[in-house]
C-alpha cells in the first residue's frame, strides 16, 4: 500500500494488486521519465535501492502486463510494444497461468494440452466453451483472455482519486533544507494556481506529497472553505504543517494536487484579489487546517423539539452560514448546554411541581422563583422498537428556577409521576445554567 502510494511519482493512478503486486497506469506519463524503457529502468533502480527484487512488465492492457511481469521468459523486465500484433506476439509464448485464471481452470486447460496462451487463442471460442464443465467457468477464461488482448476494457480503481489539476517538481539533487522545501512549495503553488486559473476553477482541497530519496513519502492535506486559487494562501496553510515533514535523506520529487475542485470564475477572482475580501473564509481555513475541521464549527438548527437535538454544529469549512435560526423563537434557553444533562437531587412538590431545593455539584440551592413547566415530549419515532428507552427519551417537564443568590437554572424532570409502573420513578436533571 505504502509502495503503491510511493509509485504515484510515476503516474497518479496506482494501486496494489493482490498480495505481491502493484500496477501503475503510465498512460501519458512515460515521457516525464524519458520514455517507457527509462521509466522501467528508473523504477527497477529505485526499488532495488529499497531492497525489493521486482519483476516488471509493461503492456497495452493490465492483463498482458500482469502476464509479462510474472511469466516472461526474457528476464525480470519485459515490454510489449504497442499495437495488437505486438501484444499477441508477446503473449503467445506465455503459459496459460498468465491469464489470471482459477487453479482448476488452469488444470483443465493443461489436461486439454493447452499450455500456452497462443494455443488457447488459436482455438475457436465455441469449441473452447464446450470443453468446460459450466458456462460460467468458460466465460471466466474467455473474459480473461479478452482482457489480456484488449478486446474488453478492464477498469482499474486507483488508490487515490485522480486529481484534475496538479503540479510537480523533480530535483536532480535531493532537497534537505526546510527553506528549499518552502521555496519549492511556493513554486508549486503558483504553478497550480496558474493551471486552475486557466480552467476557471478553484481548489476546495489540496494534497501535497513529497518523495524522499530513501523511498518514503510524506503527505500533507489542506482544505478550503471557499474555492481558492491564491498561491499565497495555499502556501500559508501548508507552510504551517511543513515542519512536520521529515526530509530524511532528502526530497527528490514533490507533487501538489487538487483533490477537490469547484468552479471559480475569473471575475470572482479579480474581485477577491483587489481587497482582502473573503477574510472570514481565509480565517476558517487557517483555523480548520491547524485545529482539525471538526473543531471549527458553525451552529445550525435542526428539526427537533428535543432541546439537545434542536441545534448542532457543522464544520465551518464545509458549510456556509445557516439562516434558519432567526425564525425559531423559543422560550428562554441557556446559552451553554450541559452535554449530557447532569442528574440532581431535588426536593420538589409531588406529583407536579417545581423544585424547592436541589443539590448540584455538591452545592445546595434553595429556590425562590420558578416558572414552568414547559412540557417537552420525547420523540415517539425513536421509541419504536426500542425495548428499554433511556431516561432521557421520556417526557420532560422543564422549569426555569432562580435560587437565593440569583443564579438561574434550567432543570427538568424526566418522566411523570402518574405513570411510574411502566417507566420507573421520575428523575431530575439540570440541563443548563441561564446566565
Amino acid at each position: 500500500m505504502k509502495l503503491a502510494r510511493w509509485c504515484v511519482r510515476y503516474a497518479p493512478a496506482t494501486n496494489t494488486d493482490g498480495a505481491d503486486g502493484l500496477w501503475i497506469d503510465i498512460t501519458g506519463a512515460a515521457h516525464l521519465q524519458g520514455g517507457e524503457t527509462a521509466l522501467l529502468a528508473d523504477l527497477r533502480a529505485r526499488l532495488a535501492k529499497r531492497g525489493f527484487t521486482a519483476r516488471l512488465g509493461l503492456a497495452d492492457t493490465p492483463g498482458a502486463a500482469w502476464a509479462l511481469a510474472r511469466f516472461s521468459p526474457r528476464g525480470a523486465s519485459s515490454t510489449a510494444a504497442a499495437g495488437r500484433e505486438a501484444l499477441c506476439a508477446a503473449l503467445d509464448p506465455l503459459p496459460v497461468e498468465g491469464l489470471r485464471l482459477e487453479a482448476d481452470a488452469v488444470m483443465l486447460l493443461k489436461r486439454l494440452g493447452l499450455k500456452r496462451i497462443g494455443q488457447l487463442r488459436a482455438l475457436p471460442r465455441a469449441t473452447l466453451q464446450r470443453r468446460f464443465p459450466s458456462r460460467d467457468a468458460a466465460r471466466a477464461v474467455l473474459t480473461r483472455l479478452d482482457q489480456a488482448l484488449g478486446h474488453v476494457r478492464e477498469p482499474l480503481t486507483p488508490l487515490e482519486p485522480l486529481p484534475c489539476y496538479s503540479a510537480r517538481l523533480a530535483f536532480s539533487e535531493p532537497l534537505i533544507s526546510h527553506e528549499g522545501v518552502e521555496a519549492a512549495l511556493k513554486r508549486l503553488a503558483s504553478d497550480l494556481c496558474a493551471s486552475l486559473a486557466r480552467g476557471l476553477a478553484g481548489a476546495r482541497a489540496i494534497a501535497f506529497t513529497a518523495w524522499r530519496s530513501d523511498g518514503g513519502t510524506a503527505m500533507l492535506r489542506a482544505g478550503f472553505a471557499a474555492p481558492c486559487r491564491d498561491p499565497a494562501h495555499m502556501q500559508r496553510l501548508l507552510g504551517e504543517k511543513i515542519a512536520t515533514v521529515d526530509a530524511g535523506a532528502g526530497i527528490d520529487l514533490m507533487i501538489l494536487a487538487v483533490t477537490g475542485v469547484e468552479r471559480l470564475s475569473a471575475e470572482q477572482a479579480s474581485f477577491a484579489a483587489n481587497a482582502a475580501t473573503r477574510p472570514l473564509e481565509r480565517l476558517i481555513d487557517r483555523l480548520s487546517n491547524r485545529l482539525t475541521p471538526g473543531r471549527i464549527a458553525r451552529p445550525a438548527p435542526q428539526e427537533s423539539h428535543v432541546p439537545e437535538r434542536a441545534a448542532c454544529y457543522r464544520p465551518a469549512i464545509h458549510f456556509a452560514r445557516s439562516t434558519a435560526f432567526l425564525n425559531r423563537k423559543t422560550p428562554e434557553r441557556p446559552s451553554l448546554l450541559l452535554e449530557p444533562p447532569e442528574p440532581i437531587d431535588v426536593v420538589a412538590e409531588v406529583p407536579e411541581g417545581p423544585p424547592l431545593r436541589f443539590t448540584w455539584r455538591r452545592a445546595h440551592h434553595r429556590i425562590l422563583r420558578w416558572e414552568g413547566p414547559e412540557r417537552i415530549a420525547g420523540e415517539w419515532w425513536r421509541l419504536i422498537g426500542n425495548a428499554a428507552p433511556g431516561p432521557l427519551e421520556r417526557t420532560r417537564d422543564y422549569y426555569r428556577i432562580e435560587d437565593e443568590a440569583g443564579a438561574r437554572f434550567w432543570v427538568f424532570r424526566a418522566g411523570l409521576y402518574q405513570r411510574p409502573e411502566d417507566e420507573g420513578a421520575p428523575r431530575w436533571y439540570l440541563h443548563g445554567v441561564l446566565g
Partner: protein
Amino acid sequence: MESVSRIHTAGGAEARSGLVERLRRRIRAIEQAPVSLAAPPLVDAATAPGPACPPALPAPRDDGKRWTFGAQEIDRSLPEGALDPGGLHEIRPAGYPDSWAAIAMALALLARRRLTTSGTGVILWGFTEHAAHEFGAPYGPGILCLGIDPADMIMARAERGADLAWALEEGLKSRALCAALGIGCALPPGIVKRLALAARTYRTPCLLVPDHRAGRLGPALTRWRVAAARSADPPFDAGAPGLPAWDVTLERCRHGAGGQNRVLEWDHETHRFRLAAPLADRTADDGGAEPGRLATAG
C-alpha cells in the same frame, strides 16, 4: 501651617477634578454631535437636512457608532462614555457559581458590540474542551435568547489553552471579525499581552472570561467582576424569574473611573442594559457628582 497646606491641596484636587469633569463633558458633547469624520464636510452641508439628525448610515467598522452599555449610569464611568473596541476586556466571575453570569454578560456585551456593526458582525467564540465539559457547550437557541444570531458565530473548540489563544489571535488579526470571545481559560501573561496587542492593532475587541481563580489579566482595558443577582419581578408573573440580572463591578478601567458597582439587567429585546429597578431609583441622589468607591478596587 500644616492645616492650611492640607486645605490648599484638597482644594486643588477638587478644582482639578472639576476641570477634568468639565472637559469630559465637553468631549462627550462633541462626540455625540452628528459630525462624521468619515464624510467630507462639503457633502455634509449640502445634504444634511438639519443639525440634529443622528448618523443615518452606519460608518464602516467602529467609527460611526460607539460600543456602549446603553445605560448612562455605567457608560458615564467609561473613558469617553464607551468601551474601546481596540483592546482586551476581562469579564471575571466573582466565584464559581457566577461563571455562567459572566459568560452571559460577555454575550450581552457582544450583542451591544454587534449593534455598532449594524448587527452583522461575525463573532469567534473560542473555548477549551475543559470549559465545554465544565460549563456546557454553546447552544444556538440560548445564544439567540440573549440577542445574537448564532448563525453569525464561529465556534472554535480547542483542546488546550495554547490552541485557544492561537485561534483567538488569528481571529483578531484576520480583520474578519466583529469580536472574539474566549471563555474558561487560564492563559499565561505573555499570551494575554499578545492578544491585547492584536486587539489594539487590528481594532477588534477581545473579551476574555477567565476562570474565577485565575490571576488578573494585566493588559486588559477594563476588568468587570460579575456575580449573579436576584432578578426583578417580570410584569405579568410575579413568582417567575425576570430578566437576567448581574451584579457588575468595574474593577479596573484604564483612563476611566474604576470601582463602580451596579446591578444591571439585560433586555435582549431592546439589546440594552439597564439598571435593575431598586438601584435605578437610588441613583438620583448618588449619581454623577461622586464617582463612587463602593467596591474594593482590585
